């Protein structure tokens, strides 16, 4: 790529006077940063709305309309809307189970793909890539068709949701951990072996600690994918109601303002998690 720039530069010396360059650079410096910050601000607009509406005392039955009056009531009565806290419990249970399973299975797969060679590696990569290239509505519907034809249609619930979530989280775990592993210096492991560590000791004392940031990132990604999933869950949940399904169900009826409280809490809890992970990563790096 260096050659591209060099070749072009030599062939066609652009007749730009050096005086104009700082102006162009100043514009590109500040304009890009300004646009970037503007895009960031835009992504926070709905978050501001959710936070504001969590303090709203709706005049009508539904809380999605404009801001009417300030109240703390929504925050003190989160579990009041029927089924809301049950759906949260189910979502947390599903996400934790799916995250553990997907992280363990996906990490093993990533190790196999980066550290070992065997027949069918390319085919394996394709199978792992395919779920990411498949629209969720296709995955959800095909799983539902399979569960129904296998006679599971009355047993749809926790287990089938977890199965589906592990399925679509796996690829993301593999890809995330793989990225970390392939960036690691394998000579560190060779050094450990040279120093008479056996395979297990090398793995536990050298490889795993080095791969850990990637594994943690993959687990956090899985949790958020699983917790927030609506489309696949809608197909595989049967009568069970996870939090996204609850939100979806409420938009058809009256929309309790407590949902915005949950949205606000979710935002801050995840924020704390990410900050904690970042602090942990930095303290390890030192």
């Amino acid at each position, binding site marked *: 790529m260096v050659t591209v720039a060099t070749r072009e*530069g030599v062939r066609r010396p652009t007749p730009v006077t050096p005086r104009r360059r700082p102006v162009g650079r100043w514009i590109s410096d500040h304009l890009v940063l300004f646009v970037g910050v503007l895009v960031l601000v835009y992504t926070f607009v709905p978050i501001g709305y959710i936070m504001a509406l969590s303090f709203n005392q709706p005049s009508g039955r539904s809380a*999605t309309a404009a801001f009417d009056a300030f109240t703390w009531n929504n925050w003190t009565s989160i579990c009041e809307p029927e089924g809301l806290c049950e759906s949260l419990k189910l979502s947390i249970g599903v996400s934790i189970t799916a995250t553990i399973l997907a992280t363990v299975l996906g990490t093993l797969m990533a190790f196999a793909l980066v550290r070992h060679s065997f027949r069918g590696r390319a085919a394996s990569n394709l199978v792992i890539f395919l779920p*990411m290239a498949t629209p969720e509505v296709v995955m959800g519907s095909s*799983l539902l068709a399979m569960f129904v034809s296998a006679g599971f249609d009355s047993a749809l619930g926790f287990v089938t949701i977890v199965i589906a979530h592990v399925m679509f989280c796996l690829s993301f775990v593999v*890809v995330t951990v*793989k*990225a970390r592993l392939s960036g690691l210096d394998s000579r560190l492991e060779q050094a450990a072996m040279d120093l008479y560590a056996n395979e297990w000791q090398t793995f536990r004392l050298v490889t795993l600690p080095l791969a850990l940031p990637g594994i943690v990132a993959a687990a956090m990604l899985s949790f958020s994918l699983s917790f*927030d999933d609506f489309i696949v869950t809608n197909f595989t949940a049967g009568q069970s109601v996870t939090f996204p399904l609850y939100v979806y169900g409420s938009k058809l009826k009256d929309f309790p303002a407590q949902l915005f409280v949950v949205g606000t809490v979710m935002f801050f809890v995840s924020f704390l998690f990410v900050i904690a992970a970042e602090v942990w990563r930095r303290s390890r790096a030192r």
Partner: protein
Amino acid sequence: MTHGLGAPAAPEMSPAPVVDGETARRRGWGWLLLLPGMLWLFVFFLYPTIQLFFTSLYDPSGSFEQGYSMTWHFANYVDAVRDTWNLFARSFTYAGIATVVCLAMGYPLAYAIAFKAGRWKNVMLILVIAPFFTSFLLRTLAWRTILSDNGPVTSFLQTIAVLPDDGRLLATPVAVIAGLIYNFLPFMTLPLYASLDKVDPRLIEAAGDLYSGPFTGFRKVTLPLSMPGVVSGTLLCFIPACGDYINAELLGTPKQYMVGNRIQSAFLTEHNYPLASSLSIILMLVVVAMVIVYVRRSGAEDLV
């Protein structure tokens, strides 16, 4: 470039040493590590997808309650295309526009984080994903409030006469596409950042030293080097946007419905499994075909 499509989902914040992976690989029992996960994908992804294909060939005269008979009824596909080609066209148009706008918004953001943010880099990265910590349904419902008829955006656009006085935003294609853009923006920004961050700033300086203006330098150096990010970002944006039906449902009307809405209602409401399956298969095939052509033409095969 061993990073796969989704790798940028967890951008590495420190440059990692590149090693010769091949020499480090061991032969032997590695496939055992792969086995459990692969089994999961075979049983719960590949097998259902193949079965979905067979379901799409069932006789449509059967019903959900009485069961279907297998008649290799390829006419299902003809019917599906005839009845819903406009939904497919709309889905790909909306997803395409949303992807282009996401690229136009995500590129400056990723560029700013990679080159201009300085010590605020990690803070800005966290801010990119932060809005997505909360439920996407809630965020989309918040957009519904913001874009509603007496919401601030509509009133503003009416005041400056961009919209007529009885003009609407909600329940129009604009609202649906805006929702898609919003929901898939980080899928664009993160891969873009991951590849821009790897660009050596000295190369851009070198372009400047060789008398290229900032825009020529960008076009000849930065942009080509960030192409892997552009390709994976557009794919990660376009693929889910094609199958999405939440934005169309919450921000649009049946006039803006996409193919995902039809698949969902055919499966869950009408229980018309053959139709729903053939629609799903068509959607999947078209998306995969587009992805392959796109990846080939952009010369980024090793990305997958």
